[in-house]
């Protein structure tokens, strides 16, 4: 495109601010929807993938009456003070088809220096744990030092890299990668450290119901949940029947039923997101086509003049396409700017309010989403008006000239 055409396109844009900018704003809206939609969708699938790779247990046994949170139950059960019946771990370990069974203990506290929110403390048994230690290994090559803790990605640890519970400072050995759910706000400790924290709480006069891992007057400890890894070919039906027959007040969840429910809601959200994107795309395309066909009809005499002074037909087409490209480009950049600010301001809020795992993608992935949005939106205008531009290029200049001015 030469300087004359470029100048004509830009000046036409600037000198018709109402028409051009109105359309640009519409494109800006589309760009926002597309960007946020793309990032959301990316975050959702990433969250789902991360979670699925983290689902170490095939089966989890939790107390009846637990408030089931699909996202976290496979890993931890929940934070309500309900406990499994005594002896359940030993029983489960003895069952056919169970390769490993490991217990977890939960404690919830408000008294942490790190967070405004309730912090969930998850205790695991290092000897048998097959769920939490692999995550810790992702970020910590050595063994977890004695008395040290590992925190979820949302817990800020400050410069000292410690977290304070009940007036005791606990060194943070590592921060986990985000998973996109409540686990990002959890603290992971081994049983010994958990007992420590509980002692500290006791000293401060905080009384827990069932506060001891090993309850008073019994040799058998109690647990918040038991996570099971099955042998290949194990019969889950029979396993759960045997547990139910032996104990009242437990529920058994399998990885399959929980994960498929999660997948369903994530897929549903994806469909919602992309439907909204498609709707906006259609509205924007329709508005551009209508606006350009109206305005080019109105400007027939201008095109006739351009023909008179020597514009070739294909250059008229270039002009129309160029104007639509400019409209799209301006809109795209405005939209990306505004929606980026909005998205990155509210991403934490979004993550908390969509009830599926949600992880904001990495920089490279974000850049890819931006690139796609920019490319796609730059082409929306020209593609939408291609027919209109062709029609303009076929103008009968002399007939247009004779059309009476309104």
């Amino acid at each position, binding site marked *: 495109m030469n300087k*004359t055409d470029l100048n*004509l396109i830009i000046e036409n844009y600037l000198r018709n601010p109402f028409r051009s900018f109105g359309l640009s704003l519409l494109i800006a809206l589309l760009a926002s929807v597309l960007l946020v939609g793309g990032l959301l969708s990316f975050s959702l699938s990433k969250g789902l993938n991360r979670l699925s790779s983290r689902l170490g247990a095939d089966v989890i046994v939790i107390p009846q009456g637990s408030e089931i949170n699909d996202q976290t139950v496979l890993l931890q059960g929940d934070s309500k003070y309900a406990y499994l019946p005594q002896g359940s771990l030993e029983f489960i370990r003895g069952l056919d088809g169970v390769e490993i069974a490991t217990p977890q203990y939960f404690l919830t506290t408000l008294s942490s220096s790190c967070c405004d929110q309730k912090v969930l403390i998850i205790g695991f048994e290092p000897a048998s744990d097959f769920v939490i230690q692999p995550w810790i290994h992702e970020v910590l090559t050595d063994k977890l030092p004695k008395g040290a803790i590992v925190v979820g990605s949302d817990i800020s640890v400050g410069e000292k890299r410690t977290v304070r519970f009940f007036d005791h400072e606990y060194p943070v050995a590592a921060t986990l990668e985000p998973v996109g759910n409540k686990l990002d706000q959890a603290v992971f400790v081994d049983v010994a450290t958990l007992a420590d924290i509980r002692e500290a709480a006791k000293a401060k006069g905080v009384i827990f119901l069932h506060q001891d891992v090993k309850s008073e007057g019994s040799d058998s400890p109690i647990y918040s949940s038991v996570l099971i890894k099955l042998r290949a070919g194990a019969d889950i039906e029979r396993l759960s029947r045997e547990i139910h027959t032996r104990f009242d007040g437990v529920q058994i969840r399998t990885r399959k039923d929980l994960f498929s429910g999660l997948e369903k809601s994530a897929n549903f959200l994806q469909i919602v997101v992309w439907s909204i994107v498609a709707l906006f795309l259609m509205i924007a395309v329709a508005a551009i086509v209508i606006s350009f066909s109206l305005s080019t009809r109105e400007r027939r005499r*201008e095109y*006739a*003049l351009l023909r008179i002074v020597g*514009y*070739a037909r294909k250059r008229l087409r270039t002009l129309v396409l160029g104007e639509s490209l400019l409209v799209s480009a301006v809109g795209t950049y405005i939209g990306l700017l505004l929606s980026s600010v909005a998205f990155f301001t509210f991403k934490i809020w979004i993550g908390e309010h969509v009830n599926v795992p949600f992880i904001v993608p990495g920089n490279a992935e974000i850049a890819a989403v931006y690139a796609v949005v920019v490319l796609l939106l730059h082409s929306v205008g020209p593609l939408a008006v291609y027919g209109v531009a062709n029609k303009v290029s076929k103008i009968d200049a*002399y007939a247009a000239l004779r059309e009476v001015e309104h």
Partner: protein
Amino acid sequence: MILNVSNLYKTYIRRGEEFNAVDNVEFFAWSGDFSVIYGESGSGKSTLLSLLSGINRPSKGSVIFNGADFANLSDDAVSAVRNEKIGYIPQEAVFLPHFTVLENILLPKALRDGEKIEVRSIADVTDVDIASALETLGIAHLVHEMPAELSGGELKRAAIARALVNKPEVVIADEPTSNLDETNAKIVFDLLAELAHSGTSVIVATHDPRGFRYGDRIYTMHKGRLLPSAESDFGGL
């Protein structure tokens, strides 16, 4: 420069019937010719001039400019010829409404030179011929206005200036003095005569009787047919 047309037709349909707005026209013009075409309203003058300028296509016959038939040239080529060699002044006022009169006048030049259309000041008009044409036509003081702010006669003169900007080989003027008072009509005819003197071929369609005095080839158009007029001085031909 030579422009010649032969056996030229432009057929339109009116109430289901075909009729020839331009009917078997033979015409030619050399450099330096001042051709004047008279004819009652609706006789086909404007249609003929539009065919000569190449913005309209004949139904039959050919327009040959410097030996090349428009029909055999690409649109790019005809457009380039129109930009550089033909100054067409349409009967109707037509301007880019969001550009100043000066920007409109310099449009053919910007296009030819691949320059910006945007012009800030009349001081940017370095071509003395253009500057003097603006003075002669009495529109130099109006060039920074928007077209909508000019009168019909002022716009007509701006359109004439626009047609002359690229110093075309042929000027095709459709009613260049309509809307103009005596004084300005004379100025326009004088300017066109001067162009013809310096070798430009001037073709004018008009109702203005002054044309008899200025033109050296006079034609009359009647129902699409072009006839050499009795008053015409065809010289040695």
